């Protein structure tokens, strides 16, 4: 493993893209930053600007408005960048599948690297998902 990949996977800066979620997943995401789980141990921090991000974290089912926003956001992230779908909604739209205001799922808009299902997923599940994502990113390069 070269220093590039090592540095990339040890310092993931996360931009939180909320695509019309119900806020449950967002609360659990903030749980990851609290003393009990503290993901800053692994160099993971939330950033304010999408230009600083390495990971686009998507929650919720995109509707007609957030679909365009998500597309734009993905084009604004400096590459290489990873995308995580957090929550059952972002993974597979669950009960909003046939809804009138749900045009498509997240992975039809942007290429998703990791799916973390759950309604909402526990912080432990998210950390497990991030570990899998890091393993994947390291084996890819």
């Amino acid at each position: 493993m070269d220093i590039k990949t090592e540095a990339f996977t040890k310092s993931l800066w996360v931009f939180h893209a909320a695509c019309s979620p119900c806020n449950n997943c967002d609360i659990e995401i903030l749980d990851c930053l609290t003393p009990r789980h503290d993901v800053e141990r692994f160099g993971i921090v939330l950033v304010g600007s999408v230009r600083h991000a390495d990971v686009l974290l998507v929650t919720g089912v995109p509707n007609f408005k957030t679909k365009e926003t998500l597309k734009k956001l993905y084009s604004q992230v400096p590459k290489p960048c990873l995308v995580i779908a957090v929550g059952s909604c972002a993974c597979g739209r669950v009960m909003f599948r046939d809804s009138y205001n749900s045009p498509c799922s997240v992975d039809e808009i942007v290429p998703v690297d990791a799916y973390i299902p759950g309604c909402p997923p526990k912080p432990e599940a998210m950390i497990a998902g991030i570990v899998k994502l890091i393993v994947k990113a390291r084996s890819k390069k």
Partner: protein
Amino acid sequence: MPELFFRYLFFPGFLFSAVVGLLAVWLDRKVTARLQWRVGPPWHQCFMDIVKLFNKEVIVPEGAKITFILAPFLGLAGVTLLTTILGRSLFSLGAGFGQDMIVVMYLLLIPVLALIIGASASGNPLASIGVSREMKLVLSYELPFILAVITVIIKTKAINLNAVLDYQAVYSSCVFSLSGLLAFLVALMCVVAKLGLGPFDISEAEQEIMGGVLIEYSGFLLAVFKIGKAILIHALSLFLIILFLGRDLSPLFLILKYSGILVAVILIKNTNPRLRIDQALRFFWGKLALLGVLAVILSLLGL
């Protein structure tokens, strides 16, 4: 000539101060984490961040001027020169020149100017809000900071960094007198604002204007800004040591003073919520400027 380049690029210039500065940034993150009962990042985290940023894509927004790319390097060059001058007078005694304290005061403004130039060239509305706040913040903290420096100048009767150190070596550190203590407190608050930390992170305000002045920067341009900020932390700690704590400069005491100043800055950062820009202006021009004037008067009286 090669000696000059060595000093500028390696010790005590760019390389040394960047490494120490990035460790200081790590100390900031670690102490912050411990105060919040977290574990915090490992010591090499900031180096990892920089290496990662150098391998990222650089996005230059449409309509941005050439100054968008040049500004980070302007800031880095200025702050490196600053840290070279400060490090030379601290680590090798007798290496100062003329009235170098005035040069230092000017050089301290260059990173801020670079930030303002770069952010306003990006053409982002949130960045322009950040720029306007940054400019007001500079105007507000410069007055008390200059008053604090003037106090030291009056006390030691010197505008030369070496003469200041010599005075303190003969008598005692400036901070152990009434006027010196007041000036030190004033300067410490100004340093917090200069670093854009703590209650004065108004121009970056992650939750409010999404990184403000840095919002459009990505890849190695952001990394250059981050290194510049790290070197600035290092330089300001050295400047405070020279001005106020210059008596015993043996390595152990130097490290203790250095980390003591950093921890004080970090504690101020973590125990105060962000101020609005008008509150910050009132704080600096009101209370702190008064304290600064008081320190100047006391030093004129010889206290």
